[in-house]
């Protein structure tokens, strides 16, 4: 069958809407976008290749620098994988501190994703409100770890620093501040007529497509799939975590789902701080050889590390499967098809929260 195409429209690699370089080739018929294709490879560094043959201590810092937005979760997953290989146990206080930091990280990541979306649909006011609110979360992270990004807070056996009662109270205060502010912004997003026009019914990912494609994270949950690695974590269940899904499966649903998850993360942080008891924050142990596959829920979906270390402590094999890989693919093949306008291409792509640095490594 011959395809009827008017113009092949390239978007990127440098584009005002993109945080990272990537190129989207759109085939258009009039204003309608028929198909799209995403071209990656601008930030490929070969991190897995660098990791192989190096001692495991160095891979923790390298894993953190896979992604600057969700560095905490990369740090956590590789450390938990190494702990599982060697059978090192973690004190309860350290586990709770890890949970608190991971949820703070999720808050700042989701706020950044929603800021990017609001900026892409030209609603800069709401975007700036969200970006300013993100600074509150970043301040909490800085208070807890000592730096904004790349904290290396999670270390084998526990965490690097303890959280004092003063700082815990300040984080608690920050969660209440975020909650009151966020309620206003969610209402703005829900009731904004222009936002509705640009978001509702656009970039629909049907449940059949979502099931077939293996999409993960908020993008999957906005299409009605219950996919979340946190459901297997007893600590999260204990802290009152529950699955949030939506059924509209369009751009609006994906952004609203992230807002819903933000409120849940705030509750989890509060419950985590309430459950904190004085005690050790780090256990000792000895590294052993072995191979393991470990998955936890990153802000964008399931993050899997498969790592093998030998008896000398060198990394023999490592493979990182980041959530952005399936999400970018499904955005190209299912969501950005038959869009009514070329302006919806970037907003649909951003609504899936693609992290190019994660996807290419």
């Amino acid at each position, binding site marked *: 069958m011959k395809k009827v195409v008017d113009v092949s429209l390239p978007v990127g*690699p*440098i*584009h*005002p809407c*993109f*945080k*990272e*370089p990537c190129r989207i080739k759109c085939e258009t018929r009039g204003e309608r976008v028929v198909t799209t294709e995403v071209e990656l*490879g*601008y*930030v*490929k*560094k*070969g*991190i897995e*290749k*660098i990791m*192989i*043959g*190096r001692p495991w201590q160095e891979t923790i*810092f*390298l894993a953190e*620098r*896979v*992604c*600057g*937005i969700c*560095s905490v979760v990369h740090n956590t997953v590789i450390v938990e994988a190494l702990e599982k290989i060697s059978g090192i146990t973690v004190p309860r206080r350290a586990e709770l501190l890890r949970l608190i930091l991971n949820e703070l990280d999720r808050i700042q990541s989701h706020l*950044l994703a929603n*800021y990017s979306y609001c900026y892409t649909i030209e609603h800069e006011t709401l975007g*700036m409100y969200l*970006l*300013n609110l*993100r*600074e509150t979360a*970043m301040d909490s992270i800085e208070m807890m770890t000592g730096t*904004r*990004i*790349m904290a290396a807070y999670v270390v084998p056996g526990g965490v690097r620093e303890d959280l004092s009662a003063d700082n815990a109270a300040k984080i608690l205060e920050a969660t209440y501040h975020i909650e009151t502010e966020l309620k206003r912004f969610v209402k703005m997003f829900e009731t904004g007529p222009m936002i509705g026009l640009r978001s509702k019914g656009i970039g629909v990912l049907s449940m059949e497509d979502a099931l077939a494609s293996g999409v993960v994270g908020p993008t999957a949950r906005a299409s009605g799939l219950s996919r979340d690695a946190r459901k297997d974590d007893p600590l999260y269940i204990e802290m009152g975590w529950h699955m949030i899904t939506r059924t509209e499966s369009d751009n609006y649903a994906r952004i609203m789902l992230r807002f819903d998850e933000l409120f849940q993360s705030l509750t989890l942080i509060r419950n985590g701080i309430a459950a904190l008891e004085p005690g050790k924050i780090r256990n000792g142990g000895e590294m052993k050889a072995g191979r393991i596959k470990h998955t936890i829920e990153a802000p964008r979906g399931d993050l899997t590390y498969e790592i093998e270390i030998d008896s000398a402590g060198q990394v023999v094999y490592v493979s990182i499967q980041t959530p952005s890989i399936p999400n970018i693919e499904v955005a190209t093949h299912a969501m950005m098809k038959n869009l009514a306008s070329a302006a919806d291409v970037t907003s649909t792509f951003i609504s899936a929260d693609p*992290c190019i*640095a994660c996807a290419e490594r």
Partner: protein
Amino acid sequence: MSILQQLKNAVRQRSIHVCYVNTGSCNGCDIEILACLAPKYDIEQYGIYVHNNPREADVILITGGMSPQWIDKLPDLWDRVPEPKAVVTIGNCPISGCVFNRPGTLIDPPVSKYIPVTAAVPGCPPRPSEIISAILGAADILFKDYEVHQKEKEGSVKK
């Protein structure tokens, strides 16, 4: 100094258009540049506008240590930026490659091998306040009396 030049100096001091180019960074520096936009740091109060369009940029911010895809594209992009222009690199990667500069890597730092770099902000990643002060510092030196310096340069070439 002519009145026109004085006017140009005054205007350029408070109108700096910025474009950021990610040449293989991990996003950390990019989101610190984004954080500068937030009302807390408010980069626009200094007259710095993040457009992310090389054709109207004055200052190019480079993050990342030159991945193979950018080696031919970055000099092209640099040619398209109108004069006067400057490059400020953000983070350790454009200087040395940071943790990625190890055997088996694909990146090829430093960035100064490919395009002229005016200023570099080290840090993994640097804080937003450091990024703002670097842009302001570099722009003041570069764009002040730009035409006068250009004429002096041309004159010296003719002689």
